[in-house]
């Protein structure tokens, strides 16, 4: 095996533990199948509970019969179950019960599947979800299919509207999974899959890539935020606008370092498409695909040593002089 390369991650852990917990506070089951926040997820969670209960019952009955049969020998000499009784047991346990289970599983599967995968006259926003290595890009479209706003790693949805997510990837296969809202669907290159999400309460949850996609598959998360429709509209309007600050020393540093090759800040000369759109970076809660909270310290750490935080990430490390870094951070933090 290779020699170990230890990464000094300890200071980061402390920061992360404290702030992220606060950021997501009060959300028990923030990424959980069993804390549904939409009708789709609730139906599946109910199905899950039914199946757990039935499975437990079948397990107890079968093991109970087994143990009874095995324990009988202690009472007297070996005795044989009559052929008729044995046949009845095999037919009930091995044929009738499984058939009942198959019918139940298949019917419920088709009915619930139809419901949760259907568009139900979807009236909500249409959002393109692009799987990147290893982060998420969300593009909000208008009725004509033009991009209104682009953001990264943070999906905002209106409560009570069925949003259409068009899932696509230009690299490897990813899988979009926000368990509190919906089952997962893959992002397959050369194919556009569709998924619907309809949160019925306001709240904040987390989602994560569920298809193995390489080095940073483990830390490819995103935040899902559901707001009342008017709050959502306000947010979308803000995201659609260009950057609030379009000049200054920080932007100069940004361009000099070459950040604009990969990142876009709408309204400035930075128009790179490889990395996340940074136009409204300061409005986001997390950095590095929902891995660390968005704070000045973490942002500086991410710029200077991204490989320590996410080894293998495509973001290169930069080491500008400290006053340049300061200016850069101040600029980025102003991008509300």
């Amino acid at each position, binding site marked *: 095996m290779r020699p170990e390369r230890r990464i000094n991650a300890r200071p980061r852990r402390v920061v992360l533990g404290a702030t992220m917990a606060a950021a997501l506070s009060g959300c028990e089951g923030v990424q959980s199948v069993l804390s549904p926040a939409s009708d789709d997820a609730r139906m599946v969670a109910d199905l899950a509970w039914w199946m757990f209960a039935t499975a437990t019952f079948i397990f107890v009955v079968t*093991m109970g*019969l087994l143990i009874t049969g095995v324990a009988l020998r202690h009472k007297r000499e070996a*005795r044989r179950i009559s052929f008729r009784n044995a046949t009845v047991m*095999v037919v009930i346990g091995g044929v009738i019960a499984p058939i009942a289970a198959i019918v139940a599983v298949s019917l419920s599967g088709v009915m619930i599947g139809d419901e949760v995968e259907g568009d139900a006259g979807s009236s909500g926003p249409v959002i393109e979800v692009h799987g990147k290595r290893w982060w998420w890009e969300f593009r909000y479209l208008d009725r004509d299919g033009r991009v209104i706003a682009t953001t990264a790693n943070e999906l905002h949805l209106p409560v009570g509207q069925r949003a259409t997510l068009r899932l696509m990837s230009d690299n490897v*296969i990813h899988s979009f999974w926000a368990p509190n809202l919906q089952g997962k669907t893959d992002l397959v290159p*050369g194919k556009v899959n569709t998924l619907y999400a309809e949160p019925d309460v306001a709240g904040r949850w987390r989602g994560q890539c569920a298809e193995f996609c390489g080095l940073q598959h483990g830390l490819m998360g995103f935040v899902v935020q559901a707001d009342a429709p008017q709050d959502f509209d306000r947010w979308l309007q803000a995201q659609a606008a260009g950057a609030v600050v379009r000049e200054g020393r920080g932007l100069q540093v940004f361009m000099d370092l070459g950040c604009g090759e990969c990142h876009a800040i709408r309204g400035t000369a930075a128009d790179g498409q490889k990395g996340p759109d940074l136009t409204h970076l300061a409005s986001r809660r997390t950095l590095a695909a929902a891995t660390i909270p968005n704070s000045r310290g973490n942002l500086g750490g991410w710029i200077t040593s991204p490989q320590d935080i996410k080894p293998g990430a495509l973001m290169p490390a930069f080491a500008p002089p400290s006053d340049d870094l300061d200016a850069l951070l101040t600029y980025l933090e102003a991008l509300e």
Partner: protein
Amino acid sequence: MTDATPALDLRERTDDEGRERLARIERTWASPTGFLGWFMPVNHTAIGRRFIVTSFVFFLLSGVLALAMRLQLLVPLNDLLTPDQYNQIMTVHGTAMMFLFAIPAMEGVAIYVAPLMIGARDMAFPRLNAFGYYVYLIGGSAFFLSLFLGMAPAAGWFNYVPLSNKEFAPGYGVDIWTTMITFIEVSALTAAVELIVTIFKLRAPGMSLNRLPIFVWAVLVMSFMMLFAMPSVIVASAMLMMDRLVDTQFFVTEGGGSPLLWQHLFWFFGHPEVYIILVPALGIVTTIIVTFTQRPVFGYTALVLAMVGIGMVSFGLWVHHMYTTGLPLMGRSFFMAASSMIAIPSGVQVYCWIATMWGAKIRFATPMLFVLCFFAVFIAGGLTGVMVASVPFDRQVHDSYFVVAHFHYVLVGGAVFPLMAGLYYWFPKMTGRMMSERLGWWSALLIFLGFNLTFFPMHQLGLEGMPRRVYTYVPEMGWQFLNQLATAGSFVLAAGFGLTLINAIRSVFCGEVAGDNPWNATTLEWATASPPLNSNFPQPPVIDSHTPIWDWQQDDERPVVGGLRDDRRETLVTTLLDARPAMVQVLPGPTPWPFVSAVAASVGFIGLIFSPWFYVVGILAVFATFVLWFWPRHPYREE
């Protein structure tokens, strides 16, 4: 029941003529000794033993990799392993457990036990058998070696494209996977072919198909499944190999290829694969239940049909690995129904076993203990299996730790527990010595507890949103405690396997001497010495029931076949259905050529990783060695 000695057994004859004949037969069937002799044996007992030992070595190595992964996941944001190391370890663990342990271990048991069970003296193609073993040994070792060189594949055991394309997986890792897997599948195919021919044609006279022991039926079903499933993965990995080597673009979207095609081809193999491992294990379980209850199994025909049914249905449900890829719901629904249908044959088997055990005087030795553990674990895994067959539920838990829990319950429950049971059961036959019961009980207990402690919490982890194949997680997900339970459990589990390892090594040297038939079993492998004679049966038996040895004990006599020559390797060929004697087949003796051919093939395959030209080199080299291998010689020439 009396421990009756078969009256006509050559081994029991004390007169000079009898002793001389036995010695002559044994010389004819002997394997050469010495260093060079090491590369020459072709007897199925020698090859089967090597398969079993090699596969268990790979099992231990892959198990150590699992411990490394469990340690990495012990705390969030752990930096014990880099993501690249973790992905390599994860890939090698999965690949090795499936291709280097589970299948070869089942093949090994089948190759060792099945010919004995049907009263054959050897398998139909002994040299092919040896070739298959060397291919497996060389391919498996090369694959594992890549991990220690730091160039192991890191795209998962399923190698989904485009992640495994040249663009996203540069380096030799995936090439090693594709070439070595194709290579090892060759070994599985040779085993499948000769197991089928052996079972169909070399049965003892009188062993008609309806008297075939259940384990042999299971081996037959397994072999046919391999025959149909393996070509799919060979084709797929060859296509991927060519995509990477000569840009054929089978799976490249821009070139008109399809990433989903890979998934279809892979899972068309990958799902039957699970049942290829499971079916022989079910045979082992049945065998052990019959022996330890001392009764014939209830519902022989139902059990056989159930296994055949599992074999058939398993080819029609691969799409349940692809519920989330965006295929139409209507199509997926058929696979949902087909997937849950497996519950019928499985249910029939479980209840047939319960009926067999009902009220029996069961001997609770270690093999039986492992079988009882198998019941609990396998039934739990089967029940979660029916759950994940449901499309909407699976779209939530697919690729989460819930599925990790599910398939470890099915595979460890359905294959490893029966294999452990089989190990304790057949160890006396293979070595002539018993394994320690005390260590066996402790081992079974630790394995059962450790297993459940490791994998049960993973159900919960999956429902709490933890995806599979992640090298780490952030602390606020709240997954730490359950991961710690799992890691603790994995070490208990490892300790359990360690005890069995110690037990096996100790027992080889100083176990209690076993005798021919220590469990008073009824199948034919117990009708020869322990370990078996070179010729298996100096006089092959004649069969007229399901329970030959018990009948011989009752009748105090044992009909045998006469008239086979002592001075060359002759075995009886019988008819397919009724096993009436048809002809005598002369089997080939020890030879180094299978080994040389395997080395030649390996040069070709390993070279392919680096240059397509090795394809040409490999073909010519293998052709040359095959010519020498098949050169007509004694005993085919009549003297």
